[in-house]
């Protein structure tokens, strides 16, 4: 019987034995290295970008739809703001700008839901392969989703903005710092959106069918993210509540920074808090999945 070598391609690997279990020095070293393996996640983001870049026609069709609906939405908002000038602290131009900025967010932040293949993988049992990998599932998918978002920001984000600028005229931030702030807030918004969608997807493990939760999630997100109307329109305590919920971190917060009605710092703090909370919840849910779920199929 051939004797087994030490895995010499990677001297860092622990040998089997009592020193290799969790909580030991070896295990901690591995966990630490796992945290700093930035190149893996950078590569995943790149693959996420390229994977979506293979479906150019779909992205362009999405961009066209987002632009057309942007024009419709803007027309309604213009009528509203002409009847009630200064409503919610916006003038007509700000309202129109808000409309097209949030239209541009639909793709990258997947405000209509979806974007993750997880429910399909759970249903078919392919999730088993994801669970074998020595990398945290949530972080893996987040990296991939950020790549997807970057692609969709370019292909589905720019056209509605250009359409808005051409048809109605929209304002743009003048100084580069504000642009940086907008970019940071958009990224944070994608993270919050991912964390929320990840939780929605994992619910399939318990429900076996995702259509119901998907519809609920879509309703909540379209209504409460600011994609339909600015959240500043909601009156009183309801408005306070709506603006403090995680969905507000997706479209409203970055749009506010774009319009200059909120500082990038406070918006980022709000987004970071929700991002951290939802990701933590996602990590807990992933652990529960590991322990509970029946992995479907042979």
């Amino acid at each position, binding site marked *: 019987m051939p004797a087994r070598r030490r895995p010499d391609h990677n001297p860092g690997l622990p040998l089997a034995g009592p020193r290799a279990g969790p909580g030991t020095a070896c295990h901690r070293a591995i966990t630490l290295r796992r945290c700093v393996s930035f190149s893996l996640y950078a590569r995943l983001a790149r693959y996420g970008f390229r994977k979506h870049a293979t479906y150019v026609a779909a992205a362009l069709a999405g961009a066209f739809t987002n632009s057309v609906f942007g024009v419709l939405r803007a027309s309604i908002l213009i009528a509203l703001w002409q009847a009630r000038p200064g409503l919610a602290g916006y003038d007509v131009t700000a309202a129109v700008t808000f409309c097209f900025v949030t239209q541009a967010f639909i793709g990258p932040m997947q405000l209509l839901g979806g974007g993750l293949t997880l429910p399909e993988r759970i249903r078919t049992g392919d999730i088993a*392969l994801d669970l074998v*990998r020595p990398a945290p599932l949530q972080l893996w998918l987040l990296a991939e989703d950020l790549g997807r978002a970057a692609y969709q920001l370019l292909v589905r984000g720019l056209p509605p903005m250009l359409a808005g600028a051409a048809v109605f005229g929209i304002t743009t931030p003048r100084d580069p710092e504000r642009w940086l702030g907008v970019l940071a807030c958009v990224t944070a918004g994608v993270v919050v959106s991912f964390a929320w969608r990840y939780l929605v997807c994992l619910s399939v493990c318990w429900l076996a069918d995702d259509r119901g939760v998907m519809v609920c999630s879509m309703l909540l997100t379209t209504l409460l993210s600011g994609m339909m109307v600015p959240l500043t329109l909601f009156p009183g305590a309801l408005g306070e509540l709506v603006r403090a919920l995680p969905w507000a971190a997706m479209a409203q917060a970055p749009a506010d920074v774009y319009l200059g009605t909120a500082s990038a710092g406070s918006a980022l703090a709000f987004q970071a808090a929700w991002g951290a909370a939802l990701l933590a919840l996602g990590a807990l849910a992933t652990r529960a999945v590991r322990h509970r779920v029946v*992995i479907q199929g042979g």
Partner: protein
Amino acid sequence: MIETERAGRSFKVRGAVVHAVRDLSFRIEPGEFVGCLGPNGAGKSTTIKMLCGILTPTSGRVRVAGLDPSRARTALARRIGVVFGQRTTLWWDLPLRDSFELVRLLYKVDRKLFAARLDELTEALDLGGFTRTPVRQLSLGQRMRGDLAAALLHDPEVLVLDEPTIGLDVVSKAGIRSFLLRVNAERGTTVLLTTHDLGDVERLCRRVLLIDHGRLAFDGSVGDLMATAPGTATIEEVVTRLYTRGRAAPPPVEPV
């Protein structure tokens, strides 16, 4: 290398407890080539999932490469390679070699050793013609070879295969089989495979485990397996006998 001790796994399905695997005890030494047989629903895949750390046993103990799979899953993943014949780890929309590159980063394999290993696998599995092809355009045989390469790039000590030859034509099957024999002989990699293809068992496995109703129903060499039935029986007949013990066997189908 692989050891289970009265391992069991039960699931709650609508309040009722279903025992997918119970009291499973076996031991596989380093360098062995073991086939795992059993009727559909016997508990083979559940066993494999416990060995990979995807499922936690509800009773008993499982050790792979000296580690408890469910607790040291990450450490274990670096030391085992897993292929599920009906699924793929490869990136559907990207060229095959991009998936390999990800494996390198995931398992932190040194660049030089990775290149050497990839060359070796490209030659052994004849991947040369399609490493730049998006995975969705590969045939099933090509994809399976790609999946095998991806599972072996980090040079694991144990290779676990769940129906690796499912759906493949005779030529592709033969290619995969001779490759697996080579991996086992040259690198001393311990191989455990589940299959419904008795040709796999006859040509590859020195030892057979037969799981039925979640229990170990047979453990021995292919010769021992054949000896469970009267002299002239083919391996198909032998296995049918074992699968249908205590049940009525389906009537034999005569060739037309």
